[in-house]
C-alpha cells in the first residue's frame, strides 16, 4: 500500500470515465469517488509527497499537515454531499466539471509550491465556470464570461507575483510570506483576495453564483472562497490589513443582503459576509484567531451549502428565484423548510449549531487581541446574518404572502443531501471537540459558557424583534443593486462604444486618406522607379557587360591554336627579353 493517494487526482482522473458510463452505473460511480477520497484523507499522514525538480525549482505536489488535512476533510465531505444533491442530473457534463473543480481545490490545498498551486488554481476557475454555463441561459452565459474574465485577470496577477517572487527569493515553495508587502507579494495577495471575494473584488461572486445551475451553485458556494481562505491562512497570517478588510467585508455583505431580491444572490452576499470573519481572523493571526478562521471555514462550507441547497430546491420545484414572486411554500415543502432552517440557525450561530462554536472563536480572539471595534462590527454582522438568512429569506420564500405556487418536496436525493449537511451542522454544534481536534493549533476555548449563550441569544432574538417591528421596511423590491461589477460592466460598454465609434471612425479616416492620396502617389513612385531601373540602371549594366564580351572576343582571336604561331611568339619574346636584359645590365 502506498502512504498517500492524492484525493485531488482521484477526482480529476476519476472524472474522465463519467461521460461513458450508463446512468445507473454512473450514479454508483460518482458516489464511490468522493467516498474513496474521504477515506484517503482520513488515512493520510503528514509529510511531503510527489517531490521533483522542474526548471531548477523544487516541486512538491502534496505537502500534508494539519491545516491541509482539515480543508481536505471538509472538501471531500462536501463533494459527497454535493454529488448526492446532483444525483438526479441526466447529463454527465456537470458531474465532470464538479469533479475537476473539487479535484483542483484539493490540489491547491495540498500544493507545496507556487507552480503546483497556480496550475490547480486555474483548473478551479475553468471547471467552475462550466457550472455557470451549464445553466444554458443568456444571463448565465454573460455572467459566466464575466466570471472567467475576472478570474483569469486574478490568475495573471497571481502568476506575475509568483514569477517576481521566484526571481527575488530564488524559491517557489509555498509557505508563510516573510518580510513586508513588496510588489510581488502584493500581486500574490491580490490574486488570493480576489478569490476570497474581498470588496472591491467581490462582485464576481454575487454576479455569477445566482446564475449557476441549482446543483452547480452548491459546489461553487463551498470551494472557491474557502480555498482562498486556506491560502491566506497559509501565507498571510497576522497581516494587519486583512483584519480591516475582513471586518468591512462582514458588514458589506449584510448591507447588500438587505437590498437583495434574488434568493441565491442574497445567500451569495452572506458568503462575502461570512468569509469576512475568516479573513479578519487570519489577519489577527493569533493561534486562537487562525483556529477560529479555519474552523469557521469548515462549518461555513456545510451550512452555506445547506442554505444553497434549500434555495436551490425551491428554484428546482417552482422555477422562480425572486423573493417578490415566492411565498407560502411551507405548506407543500415542510421538510425543505426545516432543513433550510437548520442551515439558517447554523450560520446565525445559535447555540448547538455549528456557527456558534466557530464564529465565536474569531470574535473572542479579536477581543483577546484588544480590538474592540472589530468585536462590535463582527457582532453587528452576526445580527445582520440572522436578519437575512434566518428571518427575511425564509419568511418571504416559505411563509409570507401565499403566491399560490404549485410546489412539492424536491427529489429525494436533494433532501438526503440536505439532511447530511444538516446532521453535520448540528453535530459540530453539539460536539465541537470533534472539530477542535482537527484544528492546526491546540484549542483553549470553551464556547458553552452561560454568559456566551445568553449574550448570543440576546443579540439574535432581539434582532428578531427588530425584524418583526420593521417587517414593512424589509419588503423585497423588484430591483437590482449596483456593486463593483458596475465598473467593468459599464466600463466594457464604454470600451465597446469607444471601439465602435471614435476608433472605428479614425480607422476609416486613415484608410480613406491612404486610398485617395497615399496609394496613387505610391503607384506613381513605383512606376518611376521601374522606368529608372529599366532604362538607367539596366542599360548601364548591359553596356558594361557588352564591352567585356567584346574584349573577350578580341582576346579569343589572339589564341589561334597554331603551334608555330606560339613558338614564333615565344622566340620573339625571348629575343625581346635578352635585348632588354642586355640594355638594362649595362
Amino acid at each position, binding site marked *: 500500500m502506498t502512504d498517500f493517494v492524492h484525493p485531488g487526482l482521484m477526482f480529476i482522473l476519476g472524472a474522465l470515465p463519467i461521460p461513458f458510463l450508463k446512468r445507473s452505473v454512473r450514479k454508483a460511480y460518482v458516489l464511490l469517488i468522493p467516498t474513496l477520497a474521504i477515506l484517503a484523507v482520513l488515512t493520510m499522514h503528514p509529510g511531503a509527497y510527489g517531490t521533483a525538480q522542474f526548471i531548477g525549482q523544487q516541486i512538491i505536489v502534496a505537502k500534508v499537515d494539519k491545516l491541509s488535512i482539515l480543508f481536505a476533510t471538509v472538501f471531500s465531505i462536501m463533494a459527497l454531499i454535493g454529488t448526492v444533491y446532483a444525483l438526479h442530473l441526466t447529463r454527465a457534463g456537470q458531474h465532470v466539471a464538479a469533479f475537476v473543480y473539487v479535484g483542483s481545490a484539493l490540489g491547491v490545498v495540498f500544493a507545496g509550491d507556487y507552480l503546483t498551486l497556480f496550475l490547480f488554481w486555474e483548473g478551479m476557475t475553468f471547471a467552475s465556470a462550466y457550472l455557470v454555463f451549464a445553466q444554458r441561459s443568456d444571463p448565465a452565459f454573460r455572467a459566466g464570461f464575466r466570471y472567467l474574465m475576472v478570474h483569469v485577470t486574478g490568475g495573471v496577477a497571481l502568476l506575475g507575483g509568483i514569477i517576481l517572487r521566484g526571481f527575488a527569493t530564488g524559491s517557489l515553495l509555498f509557505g508563510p510570506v516573510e518580510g513586508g508587502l513588496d510588489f510581488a507579494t502584493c500581486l500574490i495577495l491580490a490574486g488570493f483576495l480576489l478569490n476570497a471575494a474581498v470588496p472591491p473584488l467581490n462582485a464576481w461572486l454575487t454576479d455569477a453564483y445566482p446564475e449557476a445551475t441549482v446543483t452547480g451553485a452548491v459546489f461553487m458556494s463551498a470551494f472557491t472562497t474557502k480555498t482562498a481562505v486556506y491560502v491566506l491562512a497559509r501565507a498571510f497570517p497576522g497581516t494587519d490589513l486583512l483584519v480591516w478588510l475582513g471586518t468591512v467585508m462582514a458588514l458589506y455583505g*449584510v*448591507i*447588500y443582503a*438587505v*437590498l437583495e431580491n434574488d434568493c441565491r444572490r442574497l445567500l451569495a452576499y452572506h458568503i462575502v459576509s461570512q468569509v469576512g470573519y475568516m479573513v479578519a481572523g487570519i489577519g489577527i493571526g493569533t493561534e486562537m484567531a487562525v483556529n477560529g478562521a479555519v474552523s469557521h471555514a469548515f462549518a461555513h462550507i456545510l451550512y452555506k451549502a445547506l442554505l444553497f441547497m434549500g434555495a436551490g430546491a425551491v428554484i428546482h420545484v417552482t422555477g422562480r428565484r425572486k423573493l417578490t414572486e415566492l411565498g407560502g411554500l*411551507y*405548506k407543500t415543502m*415542510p*421538510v425543505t*423548510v*426545516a432543513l433550510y432552517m437548520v442551515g439558517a440557525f447554523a450560520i446565525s450561530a445559535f447555540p448547538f449549531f455549528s456557527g456558534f462554536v466557530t464564529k465565536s472563536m474569531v470574535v473572542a480572539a479579536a*477581543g*483577546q487581541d*484588544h480590538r*474592540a471595534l472589530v*468585536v*462590535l462590527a463582527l*457582532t*453587528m454582522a452576526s*445580527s*445582520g446574518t440572522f*436578519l437575512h438568512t434566518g428571518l427575511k429569506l425564509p419568511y418571504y420564500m*416559505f*411563509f409570507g404572502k401565499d403566491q399560490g405556487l404549485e410546489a412539492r418536496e424536491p427529489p429525494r436525493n436533494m433532501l438526503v443531501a440536505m439532511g447530511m449537511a444538516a446532521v453535520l451542522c448540528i453535530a459540530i454544534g453539539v460536539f465541537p471537540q470533534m472539530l477542535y481536534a482537527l484544528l492546526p493549533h491546540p484549542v483553549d476555548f470553551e464556547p458553552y*459558557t*452561560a*454568559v456566551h449563550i*445568553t*449574550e*448570543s*441569544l*440576546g*443579540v*439574535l*432574538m*432581539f*434582532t*428578531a*424583534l*427588530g*425584524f*418583526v417591528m*420593521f417587517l414593512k*421596511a*424589509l419588503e423585497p*423590491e*423588484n*430591483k*437590482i*443593486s*449596483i456593486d463593483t461589477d458596475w465598473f467593468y*460592466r459599464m466600463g466594457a460598454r464604454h470600451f465597446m462604444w469607444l471601439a465602435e465609434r471614435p476608433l472605428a471612425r479614425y480607422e476609416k479616416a486613415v484608410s480613406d486618406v491612404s486610398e485617395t492620396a497615399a496609394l496613387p502617389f505610391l503607384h506613381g513612385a513605383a512606376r518611376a522607379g521601374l522606368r529608372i531601373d529599366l532604362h538607367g540602371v539596366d542599360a548601364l549594366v548591359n553596356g558594361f557587360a557588352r564591352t567585356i564580351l567584346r574584349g573577350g572576343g578580341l582576346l579569343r582571336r589572339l589564341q589561334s591554336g597554331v603551334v608555330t604561331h606560339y613558338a614564333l611568339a615565344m622566340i620573339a619574346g625571348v629575343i625581346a627579353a635578352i635585348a632588354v636584359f642586355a640594355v638594362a645590365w649595362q
Partner: protein
Amino acid sequence: MIKRVVDFFGDERHAKTRRRLFYLVLVLIVIADFLVFRAHAEYLWERLPGWSAVYGFGSCVLLIFVSKFLGHRCGLMRREDYYD
C-alpha cells in the same frame, strides 16, 4: 412532526400563541442575562447585563435603515433591466 412544527410557524391561527411565546422568550433571555456569572469582562459593555439585547436590536435597525438609505437615496438600487 416536522410538518406540525413548520405549520405552527406558518399558520395564521397560531399567530397569537406565536407572538406570546416570542415575547416570553425575549423576557427570559434578558432575565437570564442578568443572572449569569460574568467571570472576566474585557470591555465595559460585557459587564452590562442586557447589553447584547440592546446591541442586537440596534444593529438590526441600523442595518435595515442604512442599507435602505444607500439603496434608495444613494442610487445603489436600480431597475432590473439596468444593465440590458
